[in-house]
């Protein structure tokens, strides 16, 4: 950490040329990753991320710089070079810093830093041993990885506030490659949390995760190519939420909305989705992968309803982009680390529960696709055009889940697809992912109950759906 007096001096240095806001982001993080490949520990490595990011705002202009030189000289010199972007006179000074206190919603009982390498390896092995015991000749390669991180952040700003935040998070990931005479397939399962190691023993079972990765890959090995064309698609709960994340989440971030570069800009209060759709970004879920108690500019994490019964009611807003929108930040300002200028991002973003049993959604579908799991996707927030690739999918015939299919990609436009959601299940689940955008790669949860889209374009090589 840096001393309060140094923080005040650096904040004032940044304000010297007429800026209306200055901020120091200090970070000191350490992470360890261990990999077991085909039964043996293959690598273990440690990384330290340590530095300071300085941000100055003046009206709609943002200036950012970072350094790993944490001396007074290093920080003052960076502040001095950044303030050259403006040529006005100092408007105000920071005289004191008061601490912002916030509730710790992500407490952990035992720090990852106190675990031995042996304890982490034993955890990974619960899954890799289970794969080994299958003795299935089709499994040609299997990898278990456990990454655990401790992150300390202290932020000081010209509003006279400062706060510190400690987070610990970890991810246990299994990936497999299977092959037979039909070719090769891959499977992946990677649960993560902002909780201690007990999460991986009580809430998720390493063995189950590892075997799920194997089973998905084996299933896809025997699967036919997915048919193509427009068709009804039932999207499974949990990972299925990547659809909403891409098609709607990104275009609802203030970074796009504030510049009029989102397909949803200027549509607040309008019906943008089917009336059975309510969608939420909630950074207050205890110990969840994407939760934050306080964001990277000092606004407390909140639960924001984005779409209420189909109507657009809110966005994910940071203070800087909020200026163009005439709105205050609502706890959405995030960054990967001190090397990134922060902006509005998602946290735990999901479509909320509806009333229908998931089985009834399948039963109600005569012919279509059941997309269970996904590799991820991407979107152009301006046009709303998105894509996402399925890692596990089946054909629905006469209300029943039938043969597995592989190679399906779903594409469409967010504005159109949200209105075509015609059934929403009651089995909401969240899944952990990494989201990459302007302020780097951050932890986000996607989520949804089982839903149905009445019609969406499916790309695949299996010809027409019959």
């Amino acid at each position, binding site marked *: 950490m840096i001393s309060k007096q140094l923080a005040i001096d650096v904040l004032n240095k940044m304000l010297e040329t007429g800026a209306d806001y200055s901020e120091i982001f200090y970070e000191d993080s350490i992470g360890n990753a261990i990999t077991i490949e085909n039964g043996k520990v293959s690598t273990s490595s440690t990384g330290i991320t340590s530095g300071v990011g300085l941000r100055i705002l003046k009206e709609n*202009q943002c200036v950012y710089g970072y*350094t790993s030189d944490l001396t007074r000289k290093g920080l003052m010199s960076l502040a001095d070079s950044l303030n050259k972007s403006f040529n006005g006179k100092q408007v105000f000074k920071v005289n004191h810093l008061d601490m912002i206190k916030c509730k710790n919603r992500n407490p952990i009982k035992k720090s990852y830093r106190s675990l031995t390498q042996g304890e982490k390896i034993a955890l990974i092995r619960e899954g890799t041993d289970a794969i080994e015991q299958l003795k299935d000749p089709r499994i040609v390669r299997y990898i278990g990885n456990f990454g655990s991180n401790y992150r300390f952040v202290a932020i000081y700003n010209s509003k006279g506030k400062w706060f510190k935040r400690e987070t610990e998070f970890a991810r246990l990931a299994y990936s497999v*490659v299977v092959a037979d005479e039909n070719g090769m397939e891959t499977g992946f399962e990677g649960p993560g949390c902002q909780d201690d190691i007990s999460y991986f023993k009580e809430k998720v079972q390493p063995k189950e995760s590892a075997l799920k990765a194997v089973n998905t890959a084996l299933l896809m090995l025997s699967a036919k190519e997915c048919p193509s064309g427009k068709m009804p698609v039932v999207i499974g709960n949990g990972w299925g939420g990547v659809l909403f994340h891409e098609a709607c989440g990104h275009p609802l971030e203030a970074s796009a909305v504030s510049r009029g570069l989102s397909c949803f800009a200027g549509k607040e209060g309008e019906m943008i989705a089917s009336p059975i759709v309510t969608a939420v970004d909630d950074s207050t879920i205890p110990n969840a992968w994407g939760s934050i108690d306080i964001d990277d500019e000092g606004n407390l994490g909140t639960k924001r309803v984005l779409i209420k019964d189909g109507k657009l009611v809110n966005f994910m807003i940071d203070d800087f982009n909020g200026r163009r929108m005439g709105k205050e930040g609502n706890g959405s300002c995030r960054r990967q680390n001190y090397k990134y200028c922060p902006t509005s991002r998602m946290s735990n973003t999901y479509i909320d529960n509806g009333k229908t049993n998931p089985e009834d959604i399948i039963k109600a579908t005569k012919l279509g696709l059941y997309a269970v799991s996904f590799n991820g996707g991407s979107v152009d927030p301006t*046009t709303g055009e998105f894509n996402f*690739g399925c890692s596990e999918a089946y054909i629905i015939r006469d209300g029943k889940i039938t043969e597995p299919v592989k190679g399906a990609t779903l594409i469409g436009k967010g504005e159109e697809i949200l209105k075509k959601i015609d059934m929403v299940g009651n089995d909401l689940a969240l899944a952990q992912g990494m989201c990459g955008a302007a302020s780097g790669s951050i932890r986000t949860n996607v989520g949804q109950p089982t839903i149905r889209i009445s019609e969406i374009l499916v790309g695949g*090589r299996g010809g027409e759906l019959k």
Partner: protein
Amino acid sequence: MKFDKFFELAKKAGIEEAEVSFSNSYSLSFSLFHGEIDSYSTSNSFGFYARGIYKGKMGSISSDVYNNKMAQFFVDKIIENASVVENDDPVFIFKGSKNYRKINTFNRQLATIPVEKKIDLAREVESKLRVADPRIIEVATVAYDESSSSLTIINTHGLKLSQRSNYFVYYAAAVAKENEQTKTGSEMFLDNDFDKFVPNELVAEVVKETVSQLGGHPCDSSTYKAVLGPAVVSALMNAYVSSAIAEDVQKNSSLFVGKLGQKVASSKVTIEDLPINKTVFSKSFDDEGVATYNKAIIKNGNLETYLYNLTTAAKDGVESTGNGVTSGSKVYTAPTYLKMKPGRKSQEELFKEIGDGVYITEVSGLHAGLNSRTGNFSLQSTGFLIKGGKIDHPLDIITVSGNLVSLFSSISSVGNDSKEFISGTSCPSVIVKKLVVSGK
């Protein structure tokens, strides 16, 4: 910077061989929105990466800061990490190659050009883009990024290697609208010779890319003859060539298992890895300190070599190809600069050759829709319908699907319209005989 303390403590702790790589980087970037600078960023950063062999196993540590007080902690972490390794892969701290080629990836002039001039050129792009076509309703951003960095590797065998490089990128993105249809387009220019940047050329490319997509509608779902544009070939080539990584071949998880010396593409296809070149992507040594060299990976359709680092080369009893890339304690393998050899035909001649078909200009969602292990892909795409050898209309909301093995085997013509990409590739357009397109 001196790391004597680190090496001394490492030796004392029983680390048999050790290596430090460190980098110093400077960056400058800014972006314009509505003629004003809306973000400006600069940085000076340091990176320290050390690895060492302890009882025959490799351990590593990376950090943004280094000082002598931390040296013991770094040594302890290397030992802690090495101590848990169980696999028997041979590990190396390299003694050095015989010769290292001289390359020139640093242009002194770049840092001497005033920031004001760099901003002025961005403003010029923005203002010209705004009036270039009535259908362009917004300039989403004009951005400039500049980076200058040096990398040094020092190890206990006395090896000391350094390389300096710099580059700049201008990036512009526009939004076009017509009849309630919105399309975005962007282009970038990358080099380290500032004099080569011509604002008008970037403007023209962005305009073309953005407005040409307007008025599009899907084509029928079917199998088409196709011209794949340079950007599409680049994306698919990167994925296909990753099958040549020796580690994946050795672990039976690559499309190129047992294919050395055999046909893996049509005879029209030659793909080279060219680390020694005149672009900013050039490098004379890899992350393990091995000298790089130019080589064909696929020549006239035949797989000529796998790509090796020191570990995978030792396993196959061959020399490293200078493609080692360190990340954490592991050394991965990757090509440096991939070039597909261009042919003689212009893009127009390629269109004429297919007569009726599709011209695919971009694919997106590669991380989700393309599996380089299986070779299968199904990707959101943009492009045009080709009728009678000419562009007919843009295609809106389509996907293209296929398998990399059959796609590269079916390339029947290669164009002369090579283009360089920021991913470190150079590719022309190609014709493929069959491409599955999903649309209506």
